[in-house]
């Protein structure tokens, strides 16, 4: 009789708990995912989506994305006055990302796609040994090559976009002021219009990705 009760109760309990297990039980992570908002109109999930956002928030162990990244980010051309992009952010394609890990080993370089996104899958590299040193190098429209090396090491954060955000000023409406907390997004070049490419050459518009303002760095 008792065994019969257990046999009946256990499946019911599992069914009742299934929705809970499917939910994100970490409120900090759930909040971060929520802050990123929905997909931008016209840009489906895939290699071109959510340029500039902190990729590994979703592409990490806690999901919800199925593909796990060890480290990932987006590189932009500097904001300029090119009429094609009207002073907005534009992803920088064909930029090589060089990473030296905490053991001193160079990770095989990866290259940004045409919206500036790059990533290294966790399955390709296993556990990444922090701290990391990063250099980016890519072509300019002037025919040269521009290189930028990050001044500081990356201590633990696998998403560039967690620290490198669109800078919002204290009096900017609708934004949490992060003026003193972020160096801005990752730029390949400075504020020079000649370095800005033609957005029509990319399958997806690389211009002005909808990056949430003021998503502060969080290290639980």
């Amino acid at each position, binding site marked *: 009789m008792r065994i019969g009760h257990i046999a009946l109760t256990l499946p019911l309990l599992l069914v009742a708990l299934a929705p809970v297990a499917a939910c994100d039980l970490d409120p900090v992570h759930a909040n971060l995912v929520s802050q990123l908002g929905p997909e931008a109109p016209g840009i489906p999930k895939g290699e071109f989506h959510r340029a500039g956002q902190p990729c590994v928030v979703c592409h990490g162990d806690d999901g919800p994305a199925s593909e796990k990244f060890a480290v990932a980010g987006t590189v932009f051309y500097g904001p300029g006055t090119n009429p094609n992009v009207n002073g907005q952010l534009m992803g920088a394609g064909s930029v090589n990302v060089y990473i030296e890990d905490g053991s001193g080993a160079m990770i095989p370089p990866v290259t940004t796609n045409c919206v500036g996104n790059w990533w290294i899958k966790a399955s390709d590299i296993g556990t990444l040994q922090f701290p990391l040193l990063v250099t980016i190098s890519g072509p300019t429209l002037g025919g040269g090559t521009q290189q930028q090396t990050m001044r*500081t090491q990356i201590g633990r954060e696998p998403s560039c976009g967690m620290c490198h955000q669109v800078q919002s000023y204290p009096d900017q409406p609708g934004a949490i002021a992060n003026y*003193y907390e*972020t160096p801005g997004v990752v730029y390949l070049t400075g504020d020079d219009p000649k370095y800005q490419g033609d957005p029509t050459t990319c399958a997806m518009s690389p211009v002005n990705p909808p990056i949430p303002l003021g998503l502060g760095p969080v290290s639980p």
Partner: protein
Amino acid sequence: MRAIFPMFAALSAAVIVALGVACSSFDQNAVTEVTGPDYGEFSITNSIGADGATNAGVDAVLEQRCASLDCHGQMGRALRLFSQSGLRLISQDAANVPGGAPTTQTELVANYQAVIGLQPELMTEVVQGNEPPTALLLLRKPLQLERHKGGQVIVPGSNAYDCIVSWLGGPSNFSERACALALTSP
């Protein structure tokens, strides 16, 4: 069984009263005096000295090793560090942004206060020579003598180690050279 309940109730009441007394009797005017290491040695900015050697203080080493925005360059940290390349102290200076102007004197003072205020009583004991430098979290964490989410960022005997330990050992022991070398070596 019935005898246990009154005992439990009395014990609970005593605990509640004790907690109430403990929480209401703190001294609002109490001050913890901290004897800290030398501020001047802490705040030496990275520069080339008259002898051609590079000069650096402890802050420069902490800024490089610890103060990135994803680690101790965050306002919520007990050891919260401002730096030129990381978190900035809110100011009227528009250049005071990450990657902008050099670390300001106000930020250096705030960093110093964060370092000595992390374990004020123990810091005093270390500076007075009653405890070893490795008793402090300032070293225990980066040496990974206890859990540190950032892993081991300082190796015993390295220039960074010598820089901080020599600073804690007093003015006659401070090795500005070790601090400078720590900026260019692992």
